[in-house]
Protein backbone atom coordinates (compact mmCIF):
# COMPACT_ATOMS: atom_id res chain seq x y z
CA UNK A 1 0.00 0.00 0.00
CA UNK A 2 2.99 2.31 -0.37
CA UNK A 3 1.82 3.55 -3.75
CA UNK A 4 1.61 7.28 -4.19
CA UNK A 5 0.38 9.54 -6.93
CA UNK A 6 1.51 13.02 -7.83
CA UNK A 7 -0.47 16.23 -7.95
CA UNK A 8 2.36 18.27 -9.44
CA UNK A 9 3.57 20.11 -6.36
CA UNK A 10 2.72 17.37 -3.86
CA UNK A 11 1.93 13.71 -3.63
CA UNK A 12 0.05 11.58 -1.17
CA UNK A 13 -0.53 7.88 -0.61
CA UNK A 14 -3.34 6.28 -2.57
CA UNK A 15 -6.40 5.71 -0.36
CA UNK A 16 -6.41 2.11 0.83
CA UNK A 17 -9.35 0.05 -0.44
CA UNK A 18 -10.97 -0.63 2.91
CA UNK A 19 -14.54 -0.18 4.01
CA UNK A 20 -15.06 3.02 5.95
CA UNK A 21 -17.01 2.73 9.19
CA UNK A 22 -18.53 5.79 10.80
CA UNK A 23 -18.65 6.67 14.48
CA UNK A 24 -22.40 6.05 14.43
CA UNK A 25 -21.95 2.55 13.01
CA UNK A 26 -19.46 1.77 15.78
CA UNK A 27 -21.94 3.14 18.32
CA UNK A 28 -24.73 0.98 16.85
CA UNK A 29 -22.58 -2.14 17.04
CA UNK A 30 -21.58 -1.37 20.63
CA UNK A 31 -25.17 -0.80 21.77
CA UNK A 32 -26.37 -3.87 19.89
CA UNK A 33 -23.71 -6.09 21.50
CA UNK A 34 -24.55 -4.72 24.95
CA UNK A 35 -28.25 -5.40 24.36
CA UNK A 36 -27.49 -8.95 23.26
CA UNK A 37 -25.27 -9.53 26.32
CA UNK A 38 -28.00 -8.15 28.57
CA UNK A 39 -30.48 -10.54 26.93
CA UNK A 40 -32.86 -7.89 25.52
CA UNK A 41 -32.75 -9.73 22.18
CA UNK A 42 -30.55 -12.30 20.53
CA UNK A 43 -28.20 -11.99 17.59
CA UNK A 44 -30.66 -14.21 15.72
CA UNK A 45 -33.53 -11.79 16.50
CA UNK A 46 -31.41 -8.96 15.15
CA UNK A 47 -30.56 -10.87 11.98
CA UNK A 48 -34.24 -11.72 11.43
CA UNK A 49 -35.25 -8.09 11.87
CA UNK A 50 -32.57 -6.94 9.43
CA UNK A 51 -33.67 -9.55 6.91
CA UNK A 52 -37.29 -8.43 7.31
CA UNK A 53 -36.43 -4.72 7.02
CA UNK A 54 -34.31 -5.24 3.92
CA UNK A 55 -36.90 -7.18 1.93
CA UNK A 56 -39.64 -4.52 2.11
CA UNK A 57 -38.91 -2.77 -1.21
CA UNK A 58 -41.04 -0.14 -3.00
CA UNK A 59 -43.91 -2.41 -4.14
CA UNK A 60 -46.21 -1.20 -1.34
CA UNK A 61 -45.82 2.39 -2.49
CA UNK A 62 -46.55 1.36 -6.09
CA UNK A 63 -49.77 -0.36 -4.99
CA UNK A 64 -50.79 2.68 -2.95
CA UNK A 65 -50.32 5.01 -5.93
CA UNK A 66 -52.11 2.68 -8.37
CA UNK A 67 -55.09 2.36 -6.03
CA UNK A 68 -55.18 6.13 -5.48
CA UNK A 69 -55.22 6.64 -9.25
CA UNK A 70 -58.21 4.35 -9.73
CA UNK A 71 -60.21 5.07 -6.58
CA UNK A 72 -60.87 8.78 -5.81
CA UNK A 73 -62.29 8.03 -2.35
CA UNK A 74 -59.13 6.08 -1.45
CA UNK A 75 -56.99 8.92 -2.81
CA UNK A 76 -58.79 11.34 -0.50
CA UNK A 77 -57.99 9.06 2.44
CA UNK A 78 -54.34 8.75 1.32
CA UNK A 79 -54.02 12.52 1.35
CA UNK A 80 -55.79 13.04 4.67
CA UNK A 81 -54.27 10.16 6.70
CA UNK A 82 -51.47 8.30 4.96
CA UNK A 83 -50.80 5.78 7.75
CA UNK A 84 -54.48 4.74 7.89
CA UNK A 85 -54.65 4.44 4.08
CA UNK A 86 -51.57 2.20 4.16
CA UNK A 87 -53.35 -0.13 6.58
CA UNK A 88 -56.14 -0.56 3.98
CA UNK A 89 -53.63 -2.10 1.55
CA UNK A 90 -51.99 -4.26 4.22
CA UNK A 91 -49.07 -2.04 5.20
CA UNK A 92 -48.89 -1.44 8.93
CA UNK A 93 -46.48 1.32 9.96
CA UNK A 94 -46.52 -0.08 13.50
CA UNK A 95 -44.79 -3.32 12.45
CA UNK A 96 -42.86 -5.03 13.81
CA UNK A 97 -42.63 -3.40 17.25
CA UNK A 98 -46.09 -1.90 17.67
CA UNK A 99 -44.51 1.55 17.30
CA UNK A 100 -42.89 1.14 13.90
CA UNK A 101 -39.29 0.48 13.03
CA UNK A 102 -36.69 2.71 14.67
CA UNK A 103 -36.88 6.25 13.25
CA UNK A 104 -39.82 5.55 10.95
CA UNK A 105 -42.44 6.93 13.35
CA UNK A 106 -46.12 6.97 12.42
CA UNK A 107 -46.52 10.15 10.40
CA UNK A 108 -46.90 9.88 6.65
CA UNK A 109 -47.74 12.73 4.33
CA UNK A 110 -48.40 11.87 0.71
CA UNK A 111 -47.65 14.79 -1.61
CA UNK A 112 -49.88 15.02 -4.67
CA UNK A 113 -48.39 16.27 -7.93
CA UNK A 114 -50.55 18.35 -10.27
CA UNK A 115 -49.93 19.76 -13.77
CA UNK A 116 -48.44 22.85 -12.11
CA UNK A 117 -46.73 21.34 -9.03
CA UNK A 118 -44.01 18.71 -8.78
CA UNK A 119 -42.72 17.37 -5.45
CA UNK A 120 -39.34 15.83 -4.71
CA UNK A 121 -38.16 14.54 -1.34
CA UNK A 122 -34.81 14.71 0.42
CA UNK A 123 -33.49 14.54 3.96
CA UNK A 124 -30.67 17.07 4.24
CA UNK A 125 -29.84 16.09 7.82
CA UNK A 126 -29.60 12.32 7.38
CA UNK A 127 -31.67 9.83 5.37
CA UNK A 128 -35.32 9.98 6.57
CA UNK A 129 -37.37 7.94 4.10
CA UNK A 130 -40.84 6.28 4.13
CA UNK A 131 -39.38 2.81 4.64
CA UNK A 132 -42.59 0.85 5.41
CA UNK A 133 -43.80 1.89 1.93
CA UNK A 134 -40.62 2.08 -0.11
CA UNK A 135 -38.11 -0.10 1.72
CA UNK A 136 -34.56 1.08 2.16
CA UNK A 137 -33.57 4.25 0.34
CA UNK A 138 -31.25 4.10 -2.66
CA UNK A 139 -27.59 4.85 -1.97
CA UNK A 140 -27.68 8.18 -3.75
CA UNK A 141 -30.57 9.38 -1.55
CA UNK A 142 -28.25 9.10 1.44
CA UNK A 143 -25.28 10.73 -0.28
CA UNK A 144 -24.15 14.18 0.86
CA UNK A 145 -24.09 15.18 -2.81
CA UNK A 146 -27.85 14.65 -3.33
CA UNK A 147 -28.76 15.95 0.12
CA UNK A 148 -26.88 19.22 -0.14
CA UNK A 149 -27.54 19.94 -3.81
CA UNK A 150 -31.23 19.08 -4.13
CA UNK A 151 -32.35 21.92 -1.85
CA UNK A 152 -30.08 24.46 -3.53
CA UNK A 153 -30.28 23.40 -7.19
CA UNK A 154 -33.34 21.16 -7.52
CA UNK A 155 -33.81 21.66 -11.25
CA UNK A 156 -30.21 20.92 -12.06
CA UNK A 157 -30.24 17.77 -9.91
CA UNK A 158 -33.50 16.58 -11.51
CA UNK A 159 -31.94 17.18 -14.93
CA UNK A 160 -29.12 14.84 -13.93
CA UNK A 161 -31.83 12.22 -13.34
CA UNK A 162 -33.17 12.95 -16.84
CA UNK A 163 -36.17 14.91 -15.57
CA UNK A 164 -36.49 18.37 -17.10
CA UNK A 165 -39.54 20.35 -16.04
CA UNK A 166 -40.68 23.65 -17.55
CA UNK A 167 -40.11 26.78 -15.40
CA UNK A 168 -43.86 27.34 -15.00
CA UNK A 169 -44.18 24.06 -13.08
CA UNK A 170 -43.53 24.80 -9.41
CA UNK A 171 -40.92 22.46 -7.98
CA UNK A 172 -41.50 21.87 -4.29
CA UNK A 173 -38.64 20.29 -2.39
CA UNK A 174 -39.72 18.51 0.79
CA UNK A 175 -36.84 18.40 3.27
CA UNK A 176 -37.83 15.62 5.66
CA UNK A 177 -36.08 16.80 8.82
CA UNK A 178 -38.35 15.73 11.69
CA UNK A 179 -40.86 12.90 12.21
CA UNK A 180 -43.10 13.20 9.17
CA UNK A 181 -42.21 10.88 6.33
CA UNK A 182 -43.09 11.85 2.78
CA UNK A 183 -43.92 10.12 -0.46
CA UNK A 184 -44.83 11.63 -3.82
CA UNK A 185 -48.13 10.75 -5.50
CA UNK A 186 -47.24 11.35 -9.15
CA UNK A 187 -49.77 12.11 -11.87
CA UNK A 188 -51.25 9.19 -13.77
CA UNK A 189 -49.74 9.30 -17.25
CA UNK A 190 -51.88 9.58 -20.37
CA UNK A 191 -52.33 6.35 -22.27
CA UNK A 192 -53.16 4.30 -19.18
CA UNK A 193 -56.89 5.03 -19.08
CA UNK A 194 -58.02 1.42 -19.52
CA UNK A 195 -55.32 -0.12 -17.30
CA UNK A 196 -56.00 -2.23 -14.24
CA UNK A 197 -54.59 -1.38 -10.82
CA UNK A 198 -52.02 -4.16 -11.21
CA UNK A 199 -50.84 -2.82 -14.57
CA UNK A 200 -50.61 0.70 -13.18
CA UNK A 201 -48.57 -0.43 -10.18
CA UNK A 202 -45.92 -1.81 -12.55
CA UNK A 203 -45.03 1.64 -13.90
CA UNK A 204 -44.86 3.37 -10.50
CA UNK A 205 -41.18 2.88 -9.83
CA UNK A 206 -39.34 3.86 -6.66
CA UNK A 207 -37.86 6.99 -8.25
CA UNK A 208 -41.34 8.23 -9.21
CA UNK A 209 -42.32 8.18 -5.54
CA UNK A 210 -39.17 10.07 -4.50
CA UNK A 211 -39.92 12.58 -7.25
CA UNK A 212 -36.80 12.25 -9.40
CA UNK A 213 -38.72 10.58 -12.24
CA UNK A 214 -42.21 10.50 -13.74
CA UNK A 215 -44.18 7.33 -14.46
CA UNK A 216 -44.40 6.43 -18.14
CA UNK A 217 -46.64 3.82 -19.78
CA UNK A 218 -43.64 2.31 -21.56
CA UNK A 219 -41.39 1.83 -18.53
CA UNK A 220 -41.98 -0.85 -15.92
CA UNK A 221 -40.04 -1.41 -12.74
CA UNK A 222 -38.82 -4.82 -13.91
CA UNK A 223 -38.00 -3.83 -17.50
CA UNK A 224 -34.70 -5.05 -18.85
CA UNK A 225 -32.70 -1.91 -19.45
CA UNK A 226 -31.67 -1.34 -23.08
CA UNK A 227 -28.03 -1.60 -24.10
CA UNK A 228 -26.98 1.64 -25.72
CA UNK A 229 -24.29 1.44 -28.34
CA UNK A 230 -21.74 4.24 -28.32
CA UNK A 231 -22.62 6.75 -31.02
CA UNK A 232 -18.97 7.68 -31.53
CA UNK A 233 -17.00 4.69 -30.26
CA UNK A 234 -13.30 5.03 -29.60
CA UNK A 235 -11.33 3.87 -32.66
CA UNK A 236 -14.12 4.36 -35.15
CA UNK A 237 -16.75 1.74 -35.92
CA UNK A 238 -18.78 -0.04 -33.33
CA UNK A 239 -18.17 -3.77 -33.21
CA UNK A 240 -20.62 -6.29 -31.91
CA UNK A 241 -19.35 -8.28 -28.93
CA UNK A 242 -17.78 -11.46 -30.24
CA UNK A 243 -17.37 -10.02 -33.73
CA UNK A 244 -13.96 -9.76 -35.32
CA UNK A 245 -12.23 -6.44 -34.54
Amino acid at each position, binding site marked *: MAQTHDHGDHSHPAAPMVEEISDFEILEIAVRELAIEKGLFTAEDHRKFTEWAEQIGPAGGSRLVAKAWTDPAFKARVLSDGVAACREIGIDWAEPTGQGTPSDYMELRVLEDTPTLHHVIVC*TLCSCYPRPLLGHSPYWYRSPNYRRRLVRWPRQVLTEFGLVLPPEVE*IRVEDSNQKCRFMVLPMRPAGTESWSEEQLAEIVTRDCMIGVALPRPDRKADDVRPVHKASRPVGGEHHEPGGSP
Partner: protein
Amino acid sequence: MESRKTGNAPAHFNVGDLVRVKDLPNLFYSRTQMYVRGVRGTIAARTYEDLLPEDEAWNRDDAQPEQFYIVRFRQKDLWDGYPFENDTLQTELPDRWLEPAGD
Protein backbone atom coordinates in the same frame (compact mmCIF):
# COMPACT_ATOMS: atom_id res chain seq x y z
CA MET B 1 -39.27 5.38 18.18
CA GLU B 2 -40.77 6.73 21.36
CA SER B 3 -44.21 7.39 22.71
CA ARG B 4 -45.82 10.43 21.21
CA LYS B 5 -46.22 13.20 23.75
CA THR B 6 -49.58 14.89 24.00
CA GLY B 7 -49.25 17.68 26.52
CA ASN B 8 -51.79 19.78 24.64
CA ALA B 9 -49.34 22.59 24.29
CA PRO B 10 -51.05 25.65 22.81
CA ALA B 11 -50.19 25.95 19.13
CA HIS B 12 -48.89 29.44 18.32
CA PHE B 13 -49.68 29.49 14.60
CA ASN B 14 -52.37 28.63 12.09
CA VAL B 15 -52.16 27.50 8.49
CA GLY B 16 -51.41 30.54 6.32
CA ASP B 17 -49.57 32.50 9.02
CA LEU B 18 -46.33 34.19 8.04
CA VAL B 19 -43.44 33.12 10.25
CA ARG B 20 -39.72 33.66 10.49
CA VAL B 21 -37.30 30.96 11.63
CA LYS B 22 -35.34 32.07 14.67
CA ASP B 23 -31.57 31.88 14.63
CA LEU B 24 -31.04 30.32 18.05
CA PRO B 25 -27.70 28.93 19.19
CA ASN B 26 -27.12 25.21 18.69
CA LEU B 27 -26.66 23.49 22.02
CA PHE B 28 -25.01 20.28 20.83
CA TYR B 29 -27.95 19.12 18.74
CA SER B 30 -30.62 20.61 16.52
CA ARG B 31 -32.68 19.61 13.51
CA THR B 32 -33.25 23.20 12.38
CA GLN B 33 -31.23 23.54 9.22
CA MET B 34 -28.87 26.51 8.95
CA TYR B 35 -30.28 27.43 5.53
CA VAL B 36 -33.77 28.26 6.87
CA ARG B 37 -32.63 30.41 9.78
CA GLY B 38 -33.79 34.00 9.61
CA VAL B 39 -35.89 33.25 6.53
CA ARG B 40 -39.59 34.03 6.23
CA GLY B 41 -42.06 31.32 5.30
CA THR B 42 -45.73 30.35 5.56
CA ILE B 43 -47.34 27.72 7.75
CA ALA B 44 -48.51 25.03 5.30
CA ALA B 45 -49.82 22.49 7.83
CA ARG B 46 -49.95 21.62 11.49
CA THR B 47 -48.47 18.18 11.97
CA TYR B 48 -48.22 16.81 15.52
CA GLU B 49 -47.25 17.74 19.03
CA ASP B 50 -44.06 16.24 20.40
CA LEU B 51 -40.82 16.78 22.24
CA LEU B 52 -38.21 18.88 20.48
CA PRO B 53 -35.23 17.01 19.07
CA GLU B 54 -33.04 19.26 21.23
CA ASP B 55 -34.70 17.66 24.29
CA GLU B 56 -35.14 14.15 22.93
CA ALA B 57 -31.45 13.95 22.12
CA TRP B 58 -30.79 14.11 25.87
CA ASN B 59 -33.67 11.90 26.96
CA ARG B 60 -35.45 14.86 28.50
CA ASP B 61 -38.80 13.09 28.50
CA ASP B 62 -40.25 15.55 31.00
CA ALA B 63 -39.64 18.53 28.71
CA GLN B 64 -42.61 20.49 27.35
CA PRO B 65 -43.97 19.06 24.06
CA GLU B 66 -44.65 21.59 21.33
CA GLN B 67 -46.68 21.87 18.15
CA PHE B 68 -44.80 21.11 14.92
CA TYR B 69 -45.62 22.62 11.53
CA ILE B 70 -44.73 22.16 7.90
CA VAL B 71 -43.40 25.54 6.81
CA ARG B 72 -43.25 26.54 3.14
CA PHE B 73 -40.50 28.81 1.87
CA ARG B 74 -39.95 30.42 -1.51
CA GLN B 75 -36.69 29.19 -2.98
CA LYS B 76 -35.94 32.83 -3.90
CA ASP B 77 -36.07 33.73 -0.21
CA LEU B 78 -33.74 30.88 0.77
CA TRP B 79 -31.05 31.30 -1.87
CA ASP B 80 -29.59 34.52 -3.29
CA GLY B 81 -30.18 34.79 -7.00
CA TYR B 82 -32.38 31.69 -7.27
CA PRO B 83 -33.67 32.03 -10.83
CA PHE B 84 -37.06 30.27 -10.79
CA GLU B 85 -39.93 32.37 -9.51
CA ASN B 86 -42.37 29.65 -8.49
CA ASP B 87 -40.19 27.04 -6.79
CA THR B 88 -40.70 26.32 -3.10
CA LEU B 89 -39.29 24.20 -0.27
CA GLN B 90 -41.05 22.76 2.74
CA THR B 91 -39.62 21.53 6.01
CA GLU B 92 -40.86 20.86 9.50
CA LEU B 93 -40.31 23.12 12.50
CA PRO B 94 -41.71 23.38 16.05
CA ASP B 95 -43.09 26.48 17.79
CA ARG B 96 -39.86 27.24 19.62
CA TRP B 97 -38.03 27.94 16.38
CA LEU B 98 -40.70 30.22 14.87
CA GLU B 99 -41.73 33.82 15.39
CA PRO B 100 -44.51 35.82 13.72
CA ALA B 101 -43.48 37.66 10.57
CA GLY B 102 -46.78 39.19 9.58
CA ASP B 103 -45.52 42.23 7.72
